[in-house]
Structure formats: C-alpha cells, structure tokens
C-alpha cells in the first residue's frame, strides 16, 4: 500500500550538474584539490548508472555557479513515499540549493513540505531511512529542531536522533545495504552510532561492517527485474571495503567511482534523490 514500508523501489532520480565553482569553492573538511574535469566525468558516469544501467527516469537540474555544492542534492530534500520535505541546509551558503529542488519535486507531483522555521537546520545527508523508520544525525549541519520538523512531515514513522560526533553527516559512515541491512563503517564513532540506533529501534537490523567509514555510504535499491542493487565505492578507492561488498551474493553490484567528489565530502548518496512515483496514490 501507499506509504508505509515501501522502501527501496525507485522510479525516478533527481540529480544536479557540477558547477565549475565546485573545484575551488565547495565546502570541504580537508584541503584537497579537486580536478574538475575528472569530477565531471565521474558524475556523468554516476548519472549514467542511474539512468541507463538501472533505467530510472533521471531529472537533471542544471548546475548553478553561485552554488558550488549544488551537485549534492541529497541535502536539499528528504523524500519518502509521496512526501518531500524541503530542508534548510545547515551551511548558509547552501540554502538556496533548495529552490530548484523544490520546483523539481513539485513537478513530480510530490507533496511538498517546506522547512520554514529559522531555527531549524537539516541536511538530507543526516537522514537515514531504513524502510521502517528514520534516524536523524544531530551534526554540525542538522539540529534538533530540524529533526522535529522531519518527524512532523513523516508521521507514520518513528524518528530517532543520533549524535554524530565525527564526520560530516550521519550517512558519512553508514547507509542502507538492503532491507533491514545497515552498512556501517568500522570506526569507533560509527560503531557507536550504530549501537545507539539499535538501542532506539523496535526493529532489528543486520549490519555489514566495512573497514572504511566512507565506503559505508552506498546506494541500495530493489528494482523490478534486477532485484537487489547496490552502488558502492570502487576497489580502486577502497580495496578492503570492496572485498566486503563482493561477498554480497544475489546482489547486482555496481562499483561507482567517487574519487574526486569525495574530496569535497561528497559520498554516493549525496548526489541523487531517489523517488518512487508508483507509491503515490
């Protein structure tokens, strides 16, 4: 039925182009030089996987030079079922990213909920939807008020908060790897966060621990005719973690290169918003 528990079946993806300004101006937690050309190529490949390989209908928003981080669309909205919560990103410089996103999601006939409260901040990267409930990381970018508004927007689900002590976002070290399967980094903060999540949950999850926190950010889908699909970082980038993914049987495993975007803290989930239009009544 609509809404409840309809996780991981997607029909559409919203992505956004990379502005040239990303190379120099995008926010980053480390001092790295981004090779713009490589980044563009990487992103192109990413979009191709979504559209061509997986057959999703891809909505590509144009890059905006004044928004160097705009390629990371995940932070601008949280979509679950037929509802889209337009966020209020924690970084001031990114607030305007939501405008184009809001329009695009409206065009997809989603019910739009805007986060207007000026005390609230929320980055989509802090929101982990497990298919049964939400976990919201309280991080540098997301605060309690933002989480409350999210809870209000998605009333069917439990929304639990998890402190993010290290790393940018909650999903900087975890993501869903299947129904009820959480992919988690092996660092102490990651493991701790996972324990907290388990304690807060009425549900049980399996976990797949990968040596590199960053590699724990994957994109899982369950698509008709394709079954379990997992987009994960490449062996080139995280050789040890890649071995773990290779052990997932019955999965369609798609390594996706993310070497450049990672320099500006961009993980795999960051670059798209996935939508299931069929869920809409």
């Amino acid at each position: 039925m609509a809404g409840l528990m309809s996780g991981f079946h997607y029909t559409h993806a919203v992505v956004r182009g990379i502005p040239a300004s990303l190379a120099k101006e995008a926010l980053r937690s480390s001092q790295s030089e981004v090779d713009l050309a490589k980044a563009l190529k990487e992103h192109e490949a990413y979009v191709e996987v979504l559209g061509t390989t997986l057959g999703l209908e891809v909505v590509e928003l144009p890059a905006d030079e004044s928004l160097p981080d705009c390629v990371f669309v995940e932070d601008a909205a949280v979509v679950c079922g037929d509802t889209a919560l337009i966020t209020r990103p924690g970084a001031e410089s990114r607030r305007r990213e939501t405008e184009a996103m809001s329009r695009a999601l409206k065009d997809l006939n989603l019910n739009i909920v805007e986060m207007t409260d000026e005390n609230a901040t929320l980055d989509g990267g802090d929101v982990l939807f497990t298919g049964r409930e939400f976990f919201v990381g309280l991080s540098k970018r997301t605060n309690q008020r933002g989480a409350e508004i999210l809870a209000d927007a998605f009333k069917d689900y439990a929304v639990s908060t998890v402190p993010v002590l290290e790393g940018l976002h909650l999903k900087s070290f975890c993501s869903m790897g299947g129904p009820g399967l959480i992919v988690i980094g092996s660092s102490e903060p990651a493991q701790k966060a996972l324990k907290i999540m388990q304690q807060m949950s009425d549900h049980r999850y399996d976990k797949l621990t990968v040596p590199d926190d960053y590699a724990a950010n994957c994109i899982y889908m369950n698509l008709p005719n394709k079954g379990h699909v997992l987009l994960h970082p490449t062996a080139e980038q995280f050789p040890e973690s890649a071995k773990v993914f290779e052990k997932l049987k019955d999965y369609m495993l798609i390594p996706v290169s993310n070497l450049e975007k990672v320099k500006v803290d961009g993980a795999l989930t960051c670059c798209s918003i996935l939508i299931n239009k069929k869920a809409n009544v």
Partner: protein
Amino acid sequence: MECKVALLDGSDFTLNVEKRAKGQVLFDKICDHLNLLEKDYFGITCRDVENQKNWLDPSKELKKQIRTGPWNFGFNVKFYPPDPSQLTEDITRYYLCLQLRDDVVSGRLPCSFATHTVLGSYTVQSELGDYDPEELGSDYISELRFAPNQTKELEEKVMELHKTYKGMTPAEAEIHFLENAKKLSMYGVDLHHAKDSEGVEIMLGVCSSGLLIYRDRLRINRFAWPKILKISYKRNNFYIKIRPGEFEQFESTIGFKLPNHRAAKRLWKVCVEHHTFFRLISPESLPKKFLSLGSKFRYSGRTQAQTRRASSMIIRPAPLFERSSSKRYNMSLSLDGAPIMENHETLMKDSAADGATKIITKGDIITTVTTEKKAEEEKAQQEDARMDAVETQEPTATTPLRHDTKTDSEQTDFAYDGEMTATEVCTSGKDFILKETSPPEEMVKHQTNISELKRSFLETGESAAGLTEWEKRLSSSPARSPRAEEAPMIEPLELQDVSLSPQAAGYLVKYVVDSIATDLATSSGPHGISLSTTMDDDVFMDGTLREVDEVSERAEMKVSPGAVRQEVFQAISDKKGTLIILKEADDKVDTEGEETSGAGEEEEPVIPEEAKAEENEMLSTSKEKESISEDTSVVVEGIDVVEVGTKEVPVVHTETKTITYESAEVDTNGDVDPGVLLSAQTITSETTSTTTTTHITKTVKGGISETRIEKRIVITGDTDIDHDQALAQAIKEAKEQHPDMSVTKVVVHKETEITPEEGED
C-alpha cells in the same frame, strides 16, 4: 448500581451490577454483551477526579475505585497486540479496529495523509461494503470520519481506493486495516507527560516492547524491557533501573518527575501490566511475604502468551456480528469512547508545536533523563481464574509454563512505595560462566545470502547462530575454509573488539531474526544471532512478540536433545552455600516434548539433525581442544558423557554490580594466561524466560584461540520463586545451548533489598 459503559462503536451500554461487585464482574458482563472471547487485550477505563483515565482493577470492588460521581466507564483496548493477525477471531479484530479508528481520528495515533487514505478506505469497505454509486450516492463518504482534520481531498482519495476493493469482505478489510495500522510508530504506545531533570517536557511511551522516551515527536531514547531491571515510583518520581550495557558499565537508575503521586503510580502500573502481559509467560505471583510492604498491585490477568494459548482453544463458529456504523466519528471526537491516552494526544501535538529545543541527549543518548509526567492509567485485569475453555487445556499447558517460569522468572522488578518510604525488592542474580574452547562451527550452515540465513534460522531455530564466533578460524583453518566461502557474510564479529587482530576487514553481518530468533537467541548465546553483535540487545520487536508461544515451546523442545545424554546440574543456593543437585529425568523430558504438541511437532524433525550436527562438531572440535589442554578447566565432553560442569563454585556476595568479565577470568581457575585479547563483546538479550547478559571474549594464547563465554542470568522475583530451581534450569539450558563447551564456573549472587513502606492505595 447502574453502570454506563461507552463502547468502542460509540454506543452506550447500560447495565446493573451489585453494589459490591468487583471490576471483573462488570468486565465480564460487557464482554458477554459484546460476544467477545479474546478479552485479555481489553479493559475498562474510568475517569478520576482529575479527569484522568484510569484502568479499573478487576480484582477490586468497583465502588472502591470510583469515589465520586456516576458510574460511567469506557471499554477500551488495553494491550495492543503487535501482530493483530494472530488474533483468533474476527470479532476481536473488529473491536481493535474500532479502537484504532478512534485513536486515529482523535490524533493519538498520528499518521500521514497517505496512511489516512489507506486506513480510511478499509474502514469504508468494512462498514459499507463494496463501492456502489447507486446505493451509496456520491457523498457517502463524508459521513465517516477518518482523520483529525478531514479534507475533501482525503475523502476523494479514500473513495478512489474504496472502488478498488470490490469483493473484499469486512473481515478482510479489517485485517488490511490492522496490517497498516500496526506499522505506525505510535501504534499501541501509551503516552505519559513528564519532565526531565532540567525541566524539559518529555513524554514516556509505554508499549509492548518497552519504554520509549520522546521529546516532541522525536524519539530520544528507548528502553526495551530486557534492558530494564526494575521499575519503581516514589512520590511523584518514577524510576527505572537500567541493566548495564553498551554504554554504561554499571546499573544505573533513571528518574522521571511526574506531576503528582497519582500520575507516577498510574505510569508504574501501566508499566507493570505491559511488562507482564507482553514479556512474561505467566503473571508473577504476589509478594505474599511482604504483604505489608509496598503496593500489592500486580497484573494478574493472562499474559499474551496465555491468552493466545487460550484463544487457540476457541472452538465456536465465527460469531455473526453487526458492524455498527462509525457515524459517531462523524460529529464528535468520540469523547466517551475515548481511550485512556486521551490526554496524550495533545501532548504530541503541543510539543511538536512549541519550539523549545532542548537537547536532552548529551553525547550518548543513553544518559539520564529525569522526567516528570502525567500518568494516566492504572489497570489491572484479573481473569486467570476463570477461563473455561482454557482450564481444560491448562493442565497441558502447565508443564511448559512452569518450565519456563522457572528459568526466567523475571527480570524486571516492580517496586513502588506508598508515599515516601520504602521500596522493597528482592532480586537475585545468578551468573555463570561458560568456557568454550572451540566454537561450534557446525552451526555455520551453508548459506548463500542473508535472507536465506534468516529464513533458515526462523525455520529451524538452530543453526544460524554459530556464525559469528569463529570468523577468524573460518578464514584460517583449512578445514573450514570452504564453509567460509559458502557463507560469505559470516565474517568477524565485532570489529572494534578485534583491536589486536589485523584481520583484513572487520565486517560482519549479523543475522538477526526478527522474531522467534530473538527469544531463542537470547538464551542461546553463541548460537548465531545473539553473538553476532551489538544489535541484539533487545529482543522485543513487534514481530517478536507474537512468537512467545512458539518460542517457549521451542525451548522445551530443546530439552529433547538434552535427554540424549544425562546431565547433572548443580545449583547453589547462595546464602547457605547449599548444593542442590537436580537430575533431569529422561522420561520427564519426553513427556514435555509430547505435550508441546502442535508447534512442537514442527520442530521435531529438526532436533535429530541438530543433535547430529553437534556430534560431528564435537569430533572436529576435539582436536583443538586437546591442543589447548594447558587449559585445565576445559572439559572435553562427548555427547553422552555425563558431565558436571561446575568445577568450582564460588559463592559470591556482591553488590548488585555486574561481574565484569576481566575479574571473571581471573577467578577462573587461575590457569588462564593472559594471552592476547582478540575480541570481547557483551550481549544482553532476553528470552521469554530469562535475561541473559553474555560476555564473549576471544583470546589467543600461543596460537591457540580460546573463546570464553560468560553468561549472566538474572532472575528476579519475589521469594515465591524457587531460585535454585530456576538457576538449575538456567544452567541446564546454557549447557544445552553450548554443548561443546563446559561450564567452569558458576557464581551465584543474591541480592535482597528491603525497605519499609506503607501500604499502597
């Protein structure tokens, strides 16, 4: 006396009862009137002077519970079954639906627009039948209520869906309704206002799986029943004592401030009842010895496990009943029928609205929250006395029950105090340590993927378990390597624990089975699931609950393999240092097996297999054991060896502190060289019967790795419980779960806390 009862369909039922009648009389009359047999999920509410809803205590006279005003009551769902599909009768589901519809319309059960439409459409189908424009007209739907703020848009969507249900019977529609409703996060959560230590408004939600703590709409903490050692209240404070776990080393007590004493007591009662109903196999008995101390209140009705068993005996043909229209929802928010948590509804909303953003969570979530809340319920239901249909079956059921009860007795304690004084509790904790030299790899079945693993575990309840422990060995030992390949996910367990081992990756997958597994897992320690990780802390999830029966039966079945060998168990009754030797008689076991009937039969086939597997395993294992011989405490046991696990049984009197396992190691026979610690983990889990904290340490000494498992089993209860027997049972179970390990140490620790107190009420 004339009583007026607001029923779930919005109608009033007026009846007369004797002046001195007890709550049970009224309750039974109502259920008769409703033709309801599965009544344990329901209760009677009444409003107190503060207009708070309270649950009537069936064992007490009505007039003592209603001090003033007319005898007006409400009939409501008291325990929301986590899986309504397990209810036996459609009529029961119908009443549950009525309650939920009211919960939804009143806002107590928040849901999204999409869910409102889905629930609404099933409501329409159930009440009005197939969509028929000629008969129904075009506006037929607006006379029904589906949501707190019902819009035209919602009604149109409901109608759209309704059109697609042609041919669906009312009972089917209700099943669909419930399937959706039960997934809502606030389903069956009884909210109580409170404040934390900093005066921040929070809410406590009591539900089938434990206690939830909310701030506004956000869940900021959760304490599953297995995590809670004790529940108490004093004046307007409500306390929970938390079992040590991932985040805290010692037991800690968390206090919440409630508006007043009555509220604290109401909350306490609700907790006692929910815990008993959902978590226990049978209600605990009253603490007779301490009659003068504390509240005598206990939930004395049937537990969910019992009521299920009873319901399975219902043999009447499905009763015909009329689904009265839900028009009442049309006009009012159904104040009369309103369930207990009425006050709460506003809570959620208000809190969401007020921008006060205070973070209770500091660092770890698990910190201490002090709250004060408004409790609103009291309940007691006593029905066990009279269960006709059940009675017959009772004898059969009894054996298993007793069996369980021994083991688990209880883990959560209920203390209360009259006013300021005493809290009286009698707790006894028993710890024992299992030492295992070689992990039972046999348990690692060849699984290809996670879901299969889960499935197989669910089906057999056995093999999935072992996975975690031996990851390392899997990779290193040639013999097993093929297995490792076949079970790819089965990798090292706790990464963080593996500090010393550079082991390629620390990935592991934990196989947790939602339901049954949980319970089994708990006690089964090293058996796959619980071992695997952190995540198993709590056993209760919606799926789980319904499995209680099966689980208990399963547990019984486990006895059978045990019967193969004769075992002797020693239990020590702490204080006196007395040894009690219990022998498990074969025939007794068999009997139990037979009695288990239904579910039991399903398991039967499994058992031989399991036993066999064990055997094999023993063989492969024994080599390793020999090599480890330096460890004197290791007992190599064959399957039919009669072995006495307890080598050394120090009696320790401690404070309630957990025995840390370092110290345990030291204690253990002293032959344990430090070795290199490979990993350590602690798992707390709980069965229907026991709460078990399992510490698993893996060490490497001279190339030989050793796994040591320390189990801490807490048996809590009043003196009526035979602790020694419970301990013996627990040891026995532990041994059966780890046939390849030997018990090297048993520490019994008893704690009794007695505080003077005034009578309750």
